[in-house]
């Protein structure tokens, strides 16, 4: 459980970081909190030529509100966002979902952007970003581009980030309305088997997001109204996403978890909005 040899760079500015990424491309890996990357290095599942440590870049360690969106820099840890005083008011979904991200100790190191960059299909933060229709800010030597969450996360552990790009921040829109989040995991802090988030935004029913059923989070709008219509919508979603088999759950069990959790989460979001 020792990594292969690698070089280590610790740039002080985004420009320097981007220059190193431009030089090494896919041979480089960005090190933020390292909660996933270091394990993968030690398992020899990845073998980067160079690690680019962005933890000492001051401009990345910032949480700020811009145009009714909360921008979280790439060096901001999960616990720092969780402890950000306006969080519950501005991003109540994050306040509900973040405690399920790993454990207190891992959240002290793990970053918000790192979790989104890793793009685990069961992960809470990519699900939250997708449900809130947030954005990912990418910088390279050629400039900055901003991708919608759905454009960014393309599949299981795959994203639209190019090898020479650095995620500098993610942006969560501040959306009024009720939110709710629940997940089923084998133990507290484990990857979710299925996670469901809902946003009752008052616009024709509510938005519902599901992780753990497919290779990336799915977000749908489910019309309000009769409970039988809601039931049918969840049923359709269960069959559409299908679920998959692993050691912890069968595809059938994942569908059943969605059937059981989704109505509860939707009801909670509705009550939260009221």
């Amino acid at each position, binding site marked *: 459980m020792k990594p292969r040899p690698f070089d280590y760079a610790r740039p002080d500015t985004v420009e320097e970081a981007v220059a190193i990424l431009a030089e090494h491309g896919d041979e480089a890996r960005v090190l933020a909190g390292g909660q996933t990357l270091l394990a993968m290095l030690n398992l020899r599942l990845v073998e980067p030529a160079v690690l680019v440590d962005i933890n000492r870049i001051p401009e990345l360690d910032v949480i700020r509100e811009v145009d009714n969106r909360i921008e979280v820099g790439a060096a901001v840890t999960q616990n720092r966002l969780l402890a950000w005083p306006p969080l519950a008011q501005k991003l109540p979904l994050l306040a509900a979902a973040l405690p399920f991200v790993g454990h207190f100790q891992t959240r002290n190191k793990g970053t918000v952007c790192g979790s989104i960059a890793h793009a685990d299909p069961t992960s809470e933060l990519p699900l939250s970003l997708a449900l809130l229709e947030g954005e990912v800010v990418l910088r390279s030597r050629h400039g900055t581009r901003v991708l919608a969450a759905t454009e960014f996360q393309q599949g299981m552990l795959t994203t639209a980030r190019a090898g020479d790009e650095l995620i500098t921040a993610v942006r969560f829109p501040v959306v009024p309305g009720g939110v709710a989040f629940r997940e089923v995991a*084998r133990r507290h*802090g484990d990857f979710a*088997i299925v996670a469901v988030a809902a946003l009752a935004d008052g616009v024709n029913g509510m938005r519902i997001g599901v992780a753990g059923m497919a290779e990336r989070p799915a977000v749908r709008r489910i019309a309000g109204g009769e409970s039988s219509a809601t039931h049918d919508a969840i049923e*359709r979603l269960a069959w*559409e996403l299908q679920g998959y088999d692993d050691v912890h759950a069968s595809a059938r*069990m994942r569908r*059943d978890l969605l059937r059981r959790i989704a109505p509860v989460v939707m009801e909670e979001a509705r009550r939260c909005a009221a």
Partner: protein
Amino acid sequence: MAQSLGAPVLRKEDPALLSGRGRYADDLPVPAGTLHAHVLRSPHAHARIVGINPTEALAQDGVWAVITGEEVRRLSDPFLIALKAPIDQWSLAVERVRYVGEPVALVVAESRYLAEDAGELVRIDYEPLPAVIDPRAACDPSGPLLHAQAKSNEISVRRFSYGDCNRAFEAAHARVALSCDYPRNSFTPMECYVVVAEYRASDDSYDVMANFQGPFSTHPVMARALRVPGPKLRLRIPPDSGGSFGIKLSVFPYIVLAALAARITGQPIKWVEDRLEHLLAASSGPNRITEIEAAVAKDGRILALRLDQLEDYGAFLRAPMPGPLYRMHGAITGAYDIANVEVVNRVVLTNKMPASLIRGFGGPQLYLALERLVQRIAIELKLDHLEVIKRNLIPKEKFPYRAAAGALYDSGDYLRAVEAATGGGRLDELKRRRDAARAAGRHYGIGFAAVVEPGMSNMGYLSTLLTPQAREKAGPKNGAASMVTVNVDPLGAVSVTADVTVQGQGHQTVLSQIVADRLGLDPADVNVVLEMDTAKDQWSIAAGTYSCRFTPGTAVAAHLAAERMADKLKAIAAKQLNVLPEDVELAGGRIRSRSNPDNSLPFARVAGTSHWSPAMLPEGMAPALRETAVWSPPELEPPSSDDRINTSLTYGFVFDMCGVEIDPLSYQVRVDRYVSMHDAGRLLNPMIANGQMRGAFVQGIAAALYEEFVYDEAGQFLTGTFADYLVPTVAEIPAVEMLHQETPSPLTPLGAKGLAEGNCMSVPSCIANAIADALGVRDIALPATPRRIHALIAGAEEIPPVDAAARVPEAAR
């Protein structure tokens, strides 16, 4: 000073451990020039090794050697095993690999990093062979064979009969049968294996530091493998341990491997097992399939019992296996008064990592079958489960009780324990909670389990594996020696060494209590040193920390050694106090006349006399104050000619009761209430006893609900990280109410029994019974994961809506 035994004396060990000052194997200094080893392991469940090419690896800077099975075969002998069977195992695979993770080669380099880098350059060619994972399939003679010379994978079959089962079954009101699978699991310590080995060519000897736990019957196995007499394998055990739970017996093949590497390279070798290696290949408890059947009377009384136990030891049988299959043998009827028993014990090998001891070994496998069967008896006879348990419990009047298969249960009052646990409104409350949950449409069940917990194994129990004729030829094996030395220095300071290895149980504290009480001192005055050195410390083949041997064994030896020391000090003081020795007592740090306490001397003064003034000693008394006591209870007799065996010295009792509910959203089994009643005889330190019991409870919950080693059909290992092998954390562990009853053992001078494994044995069966009650099902597979619970209760799936049907995969339709 008041008696400290029985008091919750704080652990001497904790200040160092809690402030990060533990001295663990990996922290200890190593000799200059120490090299680091990395084990290359088989990716195949079964394959022929075609060739190993180390050329490229050896060309790397800092790489000293790549050691293969051929070198190991040339320099060492196969490990001895308990069975006469041609299943040779060395510390590296020879010719074939037989499980994923089997050590194939050892890379030695100047750092672990270099060793792992070079390991990727060693070319190993395999020719894959068909593997067999399922123990039943492994018994099929037409399937893959692991060890050609053994002719079969089923390497031992023994049949035992006690009483008259046939007659009992014929006369019975009913027969109740059940098939039960106990899964493969482990209890993973925080600290993995560590070995530092040196070879001294000058006298052809090995000096090894390793976190080995015993039993030290394995020391001769290692020495024989290394082809040296015992004293030439010096083994040192560090002062602290990051957990053991039985697993750290199985470091022994790596001790031999590192020792050979030290010999080959001429340098000291350090090897630290990492977590991946540990999960993949360290050790596991054996999985067992039990076919169990009872002949029962109309009132639920069990008249006779038949068990067919097929235990899967993986690819090799390692010493002292098949321990789990025989450790409970004398007590196979558990807590019940059953006169007629037939047992078939079968040992099978499959392409999995070798199984060995883990905490509770043999107990959980037996009790899952037995306690599930008792519940089935109640259901099939339409009786109350608790009532059936009570009707079958051994009555108090029958103690000491000789169980059908030979165990001598020393003491107990099982019915009183059950009444106390279920009383106090506890069972009534459980029933109320069950009824309320069921009325609301939820799944809620109540489970019970009654188990007998053995303490200190008879070293002869494993020979029950042999036929009486073979045993006679080999010579009898029995007993279990315990050794402790008490030393008093010229200033009156007391120190103690003992034949146990530290694993965190608080043995230093309890030994200091025992010795302090005999010498009239405070436990703080007694210095206990338990790091072990086989070249200098007292030990026997029974030494080590396992099978709950501390309380019935080492604790007694400490008591006896301290008593002798007290007698000697009394005789010395009597002369100086001018009284008879019978009139002398040790109390409050002084030695004084019982009849005239003012006539006294400080403890230290009397101690000094012995060292400085032998002339003042009573006539004929040897100077110096050092007493070593050996305790070897006579009740641990060899197996009789009709295969009856008293497998252990003490037999405690545990009765568990729980309520579980299936979480309606997650399918997780949620333990709502758990009550565990223990009778471990006299408790030497109730705080430490509770800690041990809670630890066993946690691991019982782990086995019942979370932890399982899973292999696919081809033998690939699916639970190689902590993301798949789920160890419950504090967030997952339910509250437990621990109750105690003390029925002292008449067979140990302190009246205390072994107590640290009981809940590992009782919890899986109690939870399984509760789940069976909640769901109304007969077959409960452990661990009872949400996936398994879902499969039990999901029923037919709702038909997909028309517009989604097109997307449904074939398999789900």
